[in-house]
């Protein structure tokens, strides 16, 4: 199988500290030195942090891959770069096929709009075409279990209803690659079960590649054939899920 996601020497640098006039002086200096075509020697490396440090990965088509690691190990940064939310500082990611990331449910929901209006708005933002939503709107409403409230503004909804609606919209998208970031940890027990069932349904598709981030090891064990373990911005281990979880627990 050929890789659908290929990550080469990926680095992501973040600046530390808050933004003040000092940054402006720094930016100005950088601009000035760029103009001269020289390197600015006054730039110190201690003001920066490498959230991702030379990450190399190949994820094959149809694989369900888990992504684990401590807080601050670079999981979210990696997902953000793969889903184009932010650009890497250096290195590159090659992606074949279309990608959808579920970093949050109900992206772009506006409290004043009705459930139906929000389905179209949020759907269009995450990249679902209007005609696809038209054909699937009934199944979205049914899955979210909010048929009687669909024409009420979302600000009247309970938080659970908003989450269910958001989840229902996001799983409508038919993508080759799906990225899920712990969104399953929301809603009541009943809805959690039905959303896990939905995820399993999605993952039964042999052609669909899924990257799944969670701190819930039993879910990872259930879902994923392979797991990436991140540690301090580097890939510590990539391989069978059991070994990755074992390593993670011991670290």
């Amino acid at each position, binding site marked *: 199988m050929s890789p659908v996601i290929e990550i080469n020497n990926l680095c992501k640098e973040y600046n530390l500290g808050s933004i003040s006039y000092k940054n402006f002086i720094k*930016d100005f200096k950088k601009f000035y030195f760029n103009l001269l075509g020289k390197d600015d020697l006054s730039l110190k490396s201690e003001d920066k942090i490498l959230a991702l440090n030379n990450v190399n990965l190949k994820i094959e088509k149809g694989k369900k891959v888990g992504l684990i690691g401590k807080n601050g190990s670079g999981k979210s940064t990696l997902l953000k770069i793969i889903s184009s939310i932010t650009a890497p500082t250096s290195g590159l990611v090659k992606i074949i096929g279309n990608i959808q990331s579920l970093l949050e449910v109900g992206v772009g929901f506006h409290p004043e709009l009705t459930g139906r209006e929000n389905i179209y708005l949020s759907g269009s933002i995450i990249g679902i075409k209007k005609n696809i939503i038209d054909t699937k709107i009934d199944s979205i409403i049914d899955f979210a279990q909010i048929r009687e409230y669909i024409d009420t503004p979302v600000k009247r909804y309970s938080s659970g209803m908003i989450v269910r609606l958001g989840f229902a919209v996001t799983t409508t998208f038919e993508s080759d690659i799906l990225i899920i970031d712990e969104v399953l940890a929301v809603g009541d027990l009943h809805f959690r079960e039905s959303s896990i069932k939905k995820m399993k349904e999605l993952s039964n598709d042999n052609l669909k590649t899924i990257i799944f981030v969670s701190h819930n090891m039993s879910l990872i064990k259930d879902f994923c054939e392979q797991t990436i373990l991140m540690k301090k911005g580097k890939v510590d281990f990539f391989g069978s899920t059991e070994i990755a979880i074992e390593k993670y627990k011991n670290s």
Partner: protein
Amino acid sequence: METQRIIDNKNKSFKDIFFEVLNSFEVIFFLVKRDFVIMYKQTILGPIWYLLQPLITSFVFLIIFNKFANIPTNGIPPLLFYLIANISWIFFSSTFNSTSLTLINNADIYKKVYFCRLAPPIANIIIGFIKFLFQFILMLFVYMWYFFSDFESQISVTCLFLPLFLLHLSIIIFALGIFICSFTIKYRDLLMILNFGTQMLMFATPVIYSFSSIPEKYKFFAYINPLIPIFENIRNSLFGLPLIDFNYYLSSIFVTFILFFLGLKIFLKYEKNLVDTI
């Protein structure tokens, strides 16, 4: 068979962003719809306020600048003279201000999903234009009232160019808006001077006076400020007065062109990392 996409640290090209915007037609449509629906859901008097605002300002202008200061209006009824300039100015200043804030206001969405980063600014300009149209229709009613009472307007074919001037104005708003946007991601200082700056700019633009009434030696400003020829032409084309000297307008197009590409270039430089600094 499937397309390969590469994510790296390069800026998008003008061609990429052009096609991205074209493909984001639906997002822009739903964002416009969102803002339109909210506009009405806020208050019952909401839409009426959009009409009252330019009317009241025009009356105030009429009293101060026409009655007290005796600034000539070239034979156009003063109320109409100020009304058209006012609604065009409100379109410029309020849309420019809100466009400058679109990146900050939509930060939550930008942080969670990738979609065309230019969609909110564009949607914002379209919303501004829709508000302008409401006010324009109001102005037409006032125009008709004057037309059937005593004002003998020479409506000429130049009014057919009006959409062109409005498009030109929208492009300037877009260019300046995304330019300010790109900087406000990191430094909010520009927002502080924005309100003040647009207010000052109003006096450098023929809103309360007409271009023909300014002394000859100051007329070269029309080469620098691209808004001068547009505002003069919007008004003159409606009332059948001769358009501004074509050289001024050509210069305005040229400046707009530069602003547009500069704004886009800077936006493209900052958009890829905007969620990190916003």
